[in-house]
């Protein structure tokens, strides 16, 4: 049966979708923050002098990175039923992406010239001060574009949160679509909203990457 596109339903659903979009954005921003901070911690831990730290970190990271986010989300939500789904979602998203961002940081840290470490040693700086004042400021500037790319890609995976009943955009879309039998309209709109939001961001990232000479 060919029913075509119902513009009324689309207009009707749009405010609901935009309402859900706020949650999508919130989850992306907080998830990115978790990933950025935790990824840095993992990258620094990965350079620890003892293998008792570096090997387990590497194994756990490889496991999280090779397994599906959706299963991790559903599993975490089923285990921590007393925690709010949005919180579970943000933490799981953050941890999943931290395994990627930590590699980015690692590359950034490796990119800091060796002479910088040696200079710190020569000035007998403490290792904490070496990281804080010399290594990280140089490393972080180089990795910002790559972190931005992961933020965009996380943004496009936030719909997974709908599965654990976080009321973000796709959750609203499925609900409205099911109630009013208007799946065509809501999913088309949801896709367009994603496109409109992510295209300018990726253009911006591209410009930033060019400027930093990558």
């Amino acid at each position, binding site marked *: 049966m*060919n029913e075509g596109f119902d513009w009324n339903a689309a207009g009707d659903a749009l405010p609901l979708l935009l309402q859900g979009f706020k949650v999508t954005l919130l989850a992306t921003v907080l998830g990115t923050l978790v990933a950025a901070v935790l990824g840095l911690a993992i990258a620094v831990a990965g350079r620890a002098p003892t293998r008792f730290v570096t090997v387990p970190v590497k194994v756990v990271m490889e496991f999280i990175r*090779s397994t599906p986010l959706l299963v991790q989300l559903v*599993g975490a939500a089923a*285990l921590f039923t007393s925690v709010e789904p949005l919180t579970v979602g943000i933490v799981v998203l953050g941890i999943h992406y931290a395994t990627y961002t930590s590699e980015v940081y*690692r590359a950034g840290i490796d990119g800091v010239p060796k002479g910088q470490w040696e200079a710190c040693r020569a000035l007998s700086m403490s290792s904490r001060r070496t990281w804080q004042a010399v290594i990280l400021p140089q490393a972080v500037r180089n990795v910002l574009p790559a972190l931005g790319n992961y933020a965009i890609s996380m943004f496009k*995976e936030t719909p997974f949160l709908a599965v654990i009943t976080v009321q973000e955009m796709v959750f609203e879309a499925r609900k409205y679509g099911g109630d009013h039998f208007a799946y065509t309209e809501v999913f088309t709109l949801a896709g367009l909203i*994603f496109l409109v939001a*992510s*295209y300018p961001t*990726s253009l911006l990232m591209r410009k930033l990457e060019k400027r930093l000479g990558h």
Partner: protein
Amino acid sequence: MNDFFSAFADDLPQLRSGLWVTLEATVLGALLALFLSFVLGLMSISRLLLSRGVSRVVVEFFRGTSLYVQLFWLYYAMPPLTGYELTPLLCGVIAFGLNYGAYGAEVVRGAINSVPRAQYEAAVALNMTPLHRMRKVILPQAWVQMIPSLTNLLIQLLKCTPLLWLISAADLMTAIEKLRTRTGETLTAYVTLLACYFVLAYALTLLMNLLERSAKRRLGLASGGGSLLKSRSAVTAPAAGGAR
């Protein structure tokens, strides 16, 4: 926990068919994605503005709209709009193929551009036809560059297959979810499922390492034996793939 594994043994046929659906979606989706990567990637380096423009629009469209939305659009939104209904598995294959094909196109474009300019010039100087040049000189070199990034995309594609559960294809996740609801062993069930995916991902990585080795050998580049067992490095994908 014992309950779970005895139920696991009972459900082995369903689990096997679930695994089969997951693998089918991964392999067919990856093949479609690979085909589209090459078509769109080669179009994007063409001299014709029209072909570059079409490729750009298609790539940005499928990268910009979330995979989740694309899959649901194919499953829920297309039937009322067009009257055609696809099976869940086919929806998955098409959505995975289109989405990862768009990402792969960037990988192909980047790899071809990274072949040194002098190689083109030498091929032109030898009076090779454009097709011959591409097939014998440019692509074999670009292919070696592409494989690590394509491996990353392949693993990401595998990691998206649990989405099939949501559109009621009988994949691996569906089978294990059924087991979980029957036995009530939430933690064991999900850890088992994650372990299955980890093994699949590692097996695919090893296969791609083999492929990389043979591609390198064809170019006369040595690759150490250790490279065969190495896992992926996450950082190569965005570096070669450009903005995600």
